[in-house]
């Protein structure tokens, strides 16, 4: 019997409070004061939320208020539901794993992914691919900051590094021989991409060479041991970050490429990557994106299990780690205003060489770099109290989880989602969506004192929740709809949704962050069967 309090969550002050607070938080996500100086593309409005205020907050606040008044007064229009849908669905992508992929029955049924931009252009990236030379599937979300260059590069390259790390020695040799003799290469990954997910053609040669160097080293190292997934993930992360750093230091004769590698290195990205192979689920996380497992309890309700730890100031262990790595004298300046060196929110990230290189190295690279870089105030800026670099690492934390039949889905999402929704709500919303809401806990009056009016209110709320499910064919889209449009009752409010989506480009970032979501659905039958086999 459920408790009455559980029965009637009609007035949830906490939720109202939460929504208010999200709006308030926007103020600190102010525009950067020197954005006007950024001459070129991705750097135009680069350092936003991840970098703290370099100017006085008050000014910014006023500026923001003005901007909002100016923007909102003249345009009092609402989007129609179809317009809202077309915005929400623009980037949605679904992939169903064929029942038999030629090798084995997959424990993954398929995945839905989607992203909703707040930045223009969006700084989040997502990737999904099936490993062709080993078993398993890779899925990842990447949250870029100070531009999207790094997130883009990581989204293109990281899975190759992971796949190569996982390959057995013989396959590596085979591949190397094929490259050597100019034969066709064994395909390593099968990508599952939305048409908007692009790969940069110009850099492919450069990237390939770096990757080849990596596997050559792996061949030389040949330890003879079978590759451990956890280790492979850590190695791949670190190696890629190292390559990004090196490429920027070495530069490239091609001026476009030279500029590109610098942009990649000077911007940053977090990564949250899942590797699923049968019942083995590994999640490697660097930064503050998050992986969460949706579990269906025996009574049909939904609960969430965290499969990653956020690397930010809220994570005590992380703060400890950073402090351990630097002399005691820096203790006070290391974490300020919940940011690394008072600037960076995530405590681990790809790129961001400004937090990794020595001051000399930074100066040398910037000076010898192209003019665009040289003119850029941001790249020239050295973080305060910068004494003992590196302050930042790309090394991931890896969590291994054995899938159980009750583990129904995995949600990978950038912090844009987690800022607005609690993981418990995410588990419920996705769970109810995937199961067609049949498992919404039935209400029983039992012996409680319930009036007709109370019951009516509760039922109306539940119905509203159900009706919003049927608009979406994609679990990620559905989740975004809730993340952006939820009212204090946890139901999608069209008016709110419409307002949030019709914010002008320059304001959107104030109210919400880029959101990128991948929802992976597991095949409980396969998981159950695999489990039994292992037993």
């Amino acid at each position, binding site marked *: 019997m459920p408790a009455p309090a559980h029965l009637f969550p009609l007035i949830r002050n906490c939720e109202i409070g939460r929504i208010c607070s999200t709006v308030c938080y926007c103020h600190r996500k102010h525009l950067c004061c020197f954005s006007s100086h950024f001459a070129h593309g991705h750097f135009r409005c680069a350092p936003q939320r991840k970098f703290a205020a370099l100017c006085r907050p008050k000014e910014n606040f006023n500026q923001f208020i003005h901007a909002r008044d100016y923007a909102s007064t003249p345009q009092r229009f609402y989007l129609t539901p179809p317009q809202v849908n077309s915005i929400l669905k623009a980037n949605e992508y679904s992939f169903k794993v064929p029942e038999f992929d030629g090798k084995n029955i997959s424990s993954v049924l398929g995945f839905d992914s989607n992203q909703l931009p707040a930045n223009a252009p969006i700084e989040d990236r997502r990737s999904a691919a099936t490993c062709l030379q080993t078993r398993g599937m890779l899925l990842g979300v990447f949250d870029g900051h100070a531009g999207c260059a790094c997130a883009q590069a990581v989204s293109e390259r990281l899975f190759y590094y992971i796949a190569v790390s996982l390959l057995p020695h013989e396959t590596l040799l085979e591949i190397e021989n094929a490259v050597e003799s100019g034969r066709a290469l064994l395909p390593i990954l099968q990508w599952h991409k939305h048409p908007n997910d692009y790969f940069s053609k110009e850099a492919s040669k450069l990237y390939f060479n770096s990757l080849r160097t990596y596997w050559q080293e792996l061949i030389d190292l040949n330890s003879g041991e079978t590759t451990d997934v956890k280790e492979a993930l850590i190695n791949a992360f670190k190696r890629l970050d190292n390559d990004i750093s090196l490429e920027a230091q070495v530069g490239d004769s091609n001026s476009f490429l030279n500029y590109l590698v610098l942009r990649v290195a000077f911007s940053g990205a977090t990564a949250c990557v899942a590797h699923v192979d049968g019942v083995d689920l590994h999640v490697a996380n660097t930064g503050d994106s998050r992986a969460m497992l949706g579990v269906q309890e025996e009574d049909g309700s939904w609960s969430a299990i965290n499969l990653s730890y956020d690397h930010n100031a809220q994570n005590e262990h992380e703060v400890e780690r950073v402090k351990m790595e630097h002399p005691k004298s820096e203790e006070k300046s290391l974490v300020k205003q919940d940011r690394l060196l008072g600037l960076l929110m995530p405590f681990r990230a790809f790129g961001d060489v400004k937090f990794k290189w020595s001051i000399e190295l930074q100066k040398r690279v910037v000076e010898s770099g192209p003019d665009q870089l040289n003119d850029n105030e941001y790249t020239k800026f050295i973080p305060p109290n910068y004494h003992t670099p590196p302050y930042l690492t790309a090394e991931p934390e890896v969590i291994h989880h054995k899938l159980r039949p009750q583990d129904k889905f995995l949600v990978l999402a950038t912090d844009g989602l987690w800022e607005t929704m609690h993981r418990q709500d995410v588990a419920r919303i996705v769970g109810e969506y995937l199961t067609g809401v049949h498992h919404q806990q039935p209400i029983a*009056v039992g012996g409680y004192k319930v009036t*007709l009016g109370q019951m*009516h209110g509760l039922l109306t709320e539940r119905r509203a929740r159900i009706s919003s499910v049927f608009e979406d064919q994609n679990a990620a889209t559905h989740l975004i709809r809730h993340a952006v449009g939820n009212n204090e009752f946890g139901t999608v409010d069209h008016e709110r949704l419409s307002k949030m989506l019709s914010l002008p480009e320059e304001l959107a970032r104030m109210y919400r962050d880029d959101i990128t979501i991948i929802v992976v659905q597991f095949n409980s039958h396969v998981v159950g069967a695999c489990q039994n086999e292992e037993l």
Partner: protein
Amino acid sequence: MFLRLLSDVRWRAANPRWRRMTCSRRSTSSTAEPHPISLPAQAQVVICGGGIVGTSVAYHLSKLGWKDIVLLEQGRLAAGTTRFCAGIVSTARPVSIELKMADYSNKLYQQLEQETGIKTGYMKTGSISLAQTQDRLISLKRIASSLNVMGIPCEIITPKQAAQLHPLINIHDLVGAMYVPGDALVSSADVSLALATAASRNGVQIHERTSVSHVLVQKGRVTGVETDRGQISCQYFVNCAGQWAYELGLSGEEQVSIPVHACEHFYLLTYPLKEPLASSIPTIVDPDGRIYIRSWQGGILSGGFEKNPKPLFTEGRNQLEIQNLQEDWDHFEPLLSALLRRMPGLEALQIMQLVNCPETFTPDMRCIMGESPTVQGYFVLAGMNSAGISYGGGAGKYLAEWMVNGYPSENVWPLDLKRFGTLQSSRTFLRHRVMEVMPLICDLKVPRWDFQTGRQLRTSPLYDRLDAQGARWMEKHGFERVKYFVPPGKDLLDLDQSKTFYKPDWFDIVGSEVKCCKEAVCVIDMSSFTKFEISSTGDQALESLQYLFSNDLDVPVGHVVHTGMLNEKGGYENDCSIARLNKRSFFMISPTDQQVHCWAWLKNRLPSNSSLAMEDVTWKYTALNLIGPRAVDVLSELSYAPITPEHFPSLFCKEMSVGYANGIRVMSITHTGEPGFMLYIPIEYALHVYNEVMNMGQKYGIRNAGYYALRSLRIEKFFAFWGQDLDAFTTPMECGREFQVKLEKGMEFIGQEALLEQKQNGVYKRFTMFILEDHDTDMDLWPWWGEPIFRNGRYVGKTTSSAYSYTLERHVCLGFVQHFDEKTGEELVVTTDFINQGEYEIDIAGQRFQAKAKLYPFSSLFTHRRRKDEMELSGYQRE
């Protein structure tokens, strides 16, 4: 939970008395054992089911003098749906037979406490049916008209008056209401117990905790029942098993299909209001909100019929799971909203329980009653469509009369089990159909609505061709029939919008089809008709049929005879056309829904020797009706045979070739009085013949037509249809069809005596045609059927069918006129003068329209008559 306890307590209160009584009669065994009384070895009647229906049947059988009756109940008396029943006795029913049953039930329950000494909780509260729309108000007015002429007090009231009768209701969205002061509330379980007690006093043995496993049948007759406590041999078995009736019907070797299916039904019980609601406050029925609200122990009881019902127990074997059904609040939400909209003051009222009580529904929302067509002595009364309390008393009475007298005292064809066949027994069909039927209880019932589910089961081979040409379909006995053809480029309203009591959107379409029938030629696919072939080695076929049919069938080969199949009282059991194919074989065409009834009737009465063969050939022939003055031209061009009236007079049947196809049975009848032919085509030739006819007919302006055109044609010519105008209580004498009866055909036939008597003494009702005089087709409500007829301001009868006559440009209603003595109300003989000398009015939803009565059709309509003396005066399609 509470209700269950409550009724248990009541049951215990009532039980000792009852048990003492039964024990005193048969005090052989001790009461301590679970089954104190052993089952008898034999009985005349075994009734299965101890709910309201079973106890009512037992009660009425014992009243009629049958004493040797055993009632078996698998659980305890009134422990099934009856116990969970909301207990509302409401007479506001649109179908006249249902109205009569409810009225009788009400009167029965009212005096039951006095008769038995058992409290039934009877409380006359009255009921108020609310109308949120004008259309709803029209339908209420129609019901009010028929209630009033039946002598049941009833009035249409304003919203304000409704608010005075019931202070809690919110009236801002109402346009009117109907108040029936005589409606009542009862405790359904107690009523059932009272009936059982009375029956038991009359000698009926009642055994609880005894379940029937199957019925024993020998040579097509019931011989006994097998129970979990042994066998009982019996002559009659009555299946009153409610939602278990379907399975019980199929359990025996000889299966009886009883098309019922259960749905979950929810209602809400609350604690008392601060100021407890008076128990005498009227029951509110808000059909637009799909809810009913009655007072219950100072609080309310409110349930409803939602749009998306939850069918239940499709896979069967539900037995006693009925106790454990879950409450489903989310499902109840729309009904709760409707309740709070109607009575906003109840917001603070505390909920006691949401009761989930399965109700049984039938494919056409009417209950199922009567004898099985396959097993003699096997009677059924089930499928109450959640009105078991309202109907239980009356239905039990009719069934008891049926068993004892051979036929009930009212026409119960609309409820007859034989209106269904095995084709309605598919579980999938039933599941889908009841999902449509349950919401229909609250839906607006407008003329000519069709079921949307369970369709396209039986179709003509031409279905796709006709559909591609714009056919709109209706269904009869599972068969798809064309209503009309929507011309290309023309769009009709969608389903919901086309619901109207006024002029329908297809008016002009049907008008042009009628015009084509009158001036050129039309094709109507009439394949749904029931077709039997009866043949014998000798003269047995002729002899038997002469006995079964009222007209003289000893006609030359090739003749077609319209004849009634009458019962002992001279009433129409069937109205059909019979063609004599040769000396020893006959081809019989009956209405579509006669397939089961007519077969059973003939089967039970034809000699069962091998020399006589009867075959149902319905599925073998496609029937095309060529109607119109140019039909003769089309046919003669296709057959190269002389088809002039000299060679092919009216009411003739010839086998001939049409196009390449040979062996087509062509009959010169059209069922409308228009010139033309019926083509009975072996189905493999159907498409060919249809194509040939359409190609050849082009130059004569041929087009497709549907049943609506046919109906307009037949009604303006005063053709009665069996099932609509004619029934088992109507004789040929009463509808001007003496010419179809050959009283002196030289041999006896069923119903002859009754007809002779009528001929001598006159008839007590007369089939009459009414032409509406001051009726504006565009602006006024259209007549449908069941409208009261007033002669010189006094009620004399009801209409049975109506249509707009495009030729007369007037509405035509057909109906029966009776003559009630002004003082005593006694029925008097209806004479021609009585009919002709009256001033008539037809009451359509409370508004009276002047009408001209006619006993014979307009002769001017028969301009194309082929021979003066051979007027074709029959039709029997029922819409």
